């Protein structure tokens, strides 16, 4: 008995940290609150039937975005804790171990559980609408993707209160991350959490690629697709070919840690550098996975609010295709200092510089789209405008880092930190906020408040520059990445204080955004037309929020910017009044969430190296797969009378 108690208090639950006790308490309180609210308002059935079992791409997209916002909060808190710790020399706000854990979880969460799901959420919401499809190619698989991401994220976050967090950095470099140097379950959480989410992402990649290639509305040739759809296609292709590498790398390190293998150990012939190699074969394409959809979002938004067709559409497409190939050929620039030799470093340095060419081309395309147009300064467009100069700073410093010889100076300094936040925040995060504002009415039927949105925008963008620009100088002054504190005589404090202030401004911006979501839900302007921005692409041709079946009749496409073309040719009415037929839709299913639950059990079992539990979980996964295979699921039809009634209520047909 006392053995069990001893185990629970010392190994299982994380104890001895006031912040973690606070987290324990808040987790319990929030769980109780959710249960009470759902029971009191009798919402359990609604939650299960309308959300947890849904296969509707729009709802799955919304769930992705909600989860990503929660993860942004968690990762953001990590960031602020780090900024507080660094705001003065020799602080002991966090100890070294805790600081290690926090920068690890910050990086991992922000990339894999915030940026990617946020973009995949926006893709889910907008892409099928943009191509005039009823859903994605595999709606059931889409639900599995979401729930795998979700349980992966939950498993990873569980490490905070049970067992201990990973602490070897988001790159989890070996041999540091090996069992001998990093005992405990923390790194196992990293490996299994990412593994589950990664499998889900791979499935999403296949799903989106097939959807775009095979399910476009009649007339929408590849070269008439909206740019966001193009960027999604390219991203999906990169996902399909990059994520298996992550799967293998994580599995190999799991074999090392759990089963005593020697892939990356420093003994028995292991090769720690192989981890860096595999990790970045995946890791660099990953960078493009989170930036290309952002480019697509900005392209659509800039074109819409300039009231013009995107400048150089074809060039934009070709440059993205070029990026998709080049992104697989540059991975060594993440570890020039590993010492692979002059020839290797030169080749990869040059290929890295080459990739800046197609990216630079895009910048000119956006600028020339705006040239001589009437730019509308809506919040969505403000994010896009701010993106251009800020991203260019990140791009230019990236080219500096690509010079292998110079990289020996910059490597793992705050210069690097500033560089990748400059691309990831100005690129990915700005695009997430822009896309969120832009497509919000399509998701919820009301627009976000513009005034509050502008407050968020200015505070966040200014805070972001205050936070990260000083870090370039800190890098030059010699401050290295992942140091938990520094001596007082180094002169690093003033810039660190400025940086911390900027970090908190970004936090304030985020809080205003959350308040804006609440405020707009209550008082926001309802979007009755379905087309609040004078949109150009097909998602604006349907109601806001879009009906379950997306389009009563499938639109026919005659040009780029299909909806704008329809409006210009006065064909909207004619299209809406086409005869409506029964619409075939997929059935909801509870199995994806149950299957993901079994995956969670398996992941948790492997994390704690309780092999029996892992096997039990995998057997559960297998059984749910067999049940699905034997299920006869022909979907259902929405009858045309019902479609007509819905369309009439929306005022679209008389």
């Amino acid at each position, binding site marked *: 008995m006392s053995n069990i108690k001893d185990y629970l208090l010392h190994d299982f639950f994380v104890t001895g940290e006031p912040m973690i006790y606070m987290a324990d308490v808040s987790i319990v309180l929030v769980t109780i609150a959710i249960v009470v609210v759902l029971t009191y308002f009798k919402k359990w059935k609604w939650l299960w039937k309308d959300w947890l079992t849904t296969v509707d791409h729009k709802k799955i997209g919304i769930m992705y975005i909600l989860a990503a916002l929660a993860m942004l909060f968690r990762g953001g808190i990590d960031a602020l804790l780090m900024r507080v710790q660094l705001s003065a020399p020799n602080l002991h706000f966090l100890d070294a171990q805790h600081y290690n854990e926090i920068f690890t979880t910050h990086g991992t969460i922000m990339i894999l559980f915030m940026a990617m799901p946020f973009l995949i959420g926006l893709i889910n919401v907008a892409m099928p609408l943009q191509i005039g499809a009823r859903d994605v190619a595999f709606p059931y698989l889409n639900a599995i993707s979401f729930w795998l991401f979700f349980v992966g994220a939950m498993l990873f976050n569980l490490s905070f209160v049970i067992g201990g967090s990973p602490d070897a950095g988001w790159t989890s470099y070996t041999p540091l991350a090996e069992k001998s140097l990093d005992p405990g379950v923390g790194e196992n959480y990293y490996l299994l959490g990412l593994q589950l989410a990664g499998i889900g992402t791979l499935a999403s990649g296949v799903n989106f690629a097939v959807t775009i290639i095979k399910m476009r509305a009649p007339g929408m040739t590849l070269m008439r697709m909206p740019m966001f759809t193009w960027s999604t296609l390219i991203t999906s292709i990169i996902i399909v070919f990059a994520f298996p590498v992550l799967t293998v790398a994580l599995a190999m390190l799991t*074999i090392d840690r759990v089963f005593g293998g*020697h892939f990356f150990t420093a003994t028995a012939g292991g090769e720690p550098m192989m981890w860096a190699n595999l990790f970045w074969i995946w890791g660099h394409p990953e960078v493009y996975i989170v930036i290309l959809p952002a480019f697509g979002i900005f392209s659509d938004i800039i074109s819409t609010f300039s009231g013009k067709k995107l400048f150089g559409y074809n060039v934009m497409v070709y440059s993205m295709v070029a990026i998709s190939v080049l992104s697989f050929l540059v991975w060594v620039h993440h570890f020039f200092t590993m010492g692979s030799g002059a020839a290797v470093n030169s080749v990869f340095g040059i290929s890295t510089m080459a990739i800046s060419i197609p990216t630079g081309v895009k910048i000119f395309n956006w600028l020339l789209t705006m040239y001589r147009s009437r730019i509308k300064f809506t919040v969505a467009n403000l994010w896009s405008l701010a993106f251009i100069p800020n991203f260019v700073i990140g791009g230019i410093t990236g080219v500096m880092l690509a010079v292998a010889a110079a990289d020996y100076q910059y490597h793992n300094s705050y210069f690097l930190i500033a560089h990748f936040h400059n691309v990831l925040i100005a690129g990915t995060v700005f695009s997430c906020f822009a896309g969120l504002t832009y497509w919000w009415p399509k998701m919820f039927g009301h627009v976000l408040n513009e005034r509050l949105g502008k407050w968020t925008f200015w505070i966040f963008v200014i805070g972001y520059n205050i936070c990260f620009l000083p870090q370039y100088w800190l890098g030059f002054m010699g401050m290295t990445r992942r140091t938990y504190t520094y001596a007082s005589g180094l002169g690093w404090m003033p810039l660190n204080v400025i940086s911390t202030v900027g970090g908190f401004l970004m936090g304030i911006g985020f809080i205003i955004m959350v308040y804006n979501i609440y405020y707009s839900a209550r008082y926001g302007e309802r979007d009755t037309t379905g087309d609040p921005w004078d949109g150009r692409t097909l998602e604006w041709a349907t109601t806001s929020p879009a009906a379950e079946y997306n389009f009563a009749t499938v639109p026919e496409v005659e040009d780029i910017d299909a909806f704008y073309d329809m409006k210009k040719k006065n064909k909207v009415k004619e299209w809406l009044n086409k005869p409506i037929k029964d619409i075939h839709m997929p059935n909801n299913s509870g199995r994806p969430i149950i299957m993901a639950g079994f995956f969670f059990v398996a992941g948790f079992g492997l994390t704690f190296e309780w092999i029996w539990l892992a096997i039990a979980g995998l057997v559960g996964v297998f059984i749910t797969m067999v049940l699905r295979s034997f299920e006869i699921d022909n979907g259902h039809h929405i009858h045309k009378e019902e479609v007509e009634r819905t369309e009439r209520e929306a005022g679209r047909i008389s």
Partner: protein
Amino acid sequence: MSQSNSLNQHTPLEYSTEDGRLKIFGFWVFLGAEIILFSCLFASYMVYLHRTAGGPTPDDLYDVKEFMIETFLLLTSSFTCGLGTHELRRQNKMGVIIWFIITLILGLGFVGMEIHEFVDYVGEGAKLTTSAFLTSFFTLVGTHGCHVSLGILWIIGILIQTARTGINAVTARKLFIVGLYWHFLDVVWVFIFTVVYLTGMVL
């Protein structure tokens, strides 16, 4: 799935519905991902090839007779699986079931031999934990073996469905896809045969 289509009547059953066309194409894309997955395992095997850490080397372990039998079993099963698909297109239910059962038996023979091989190696002191070379060997060959085992279970499941409901658009699509999977595993084995076993004999 109930949707009819405008393609002519010579279109194979598995392509006759939108659902079938999407899933077959999706599976090809997935196979693209599988190529990458195995390529990483091959890359690590080749990196670790000489890192035997004083343990057994490829030369000590590989046995020509055994891996040749394994190879012929899998090549033949790929052929019989192809014949199953051929019968599928002639809509001959018995033919499909017979050829796929032969494929299953050959596949089981392969997996049995591989398990036997692994047990032998462990008996000779060549364990996953012995050296980086053996870790990568067992991971690469074992991952392929797991794929084959999963394929066997998958074929059994689909054969039961075919026996129950006959050959229709759904079972045709499933049989075709599992066939693709099986041929793909044969492709991977060809590389294991070449890169692992044959190369192991030369070096």
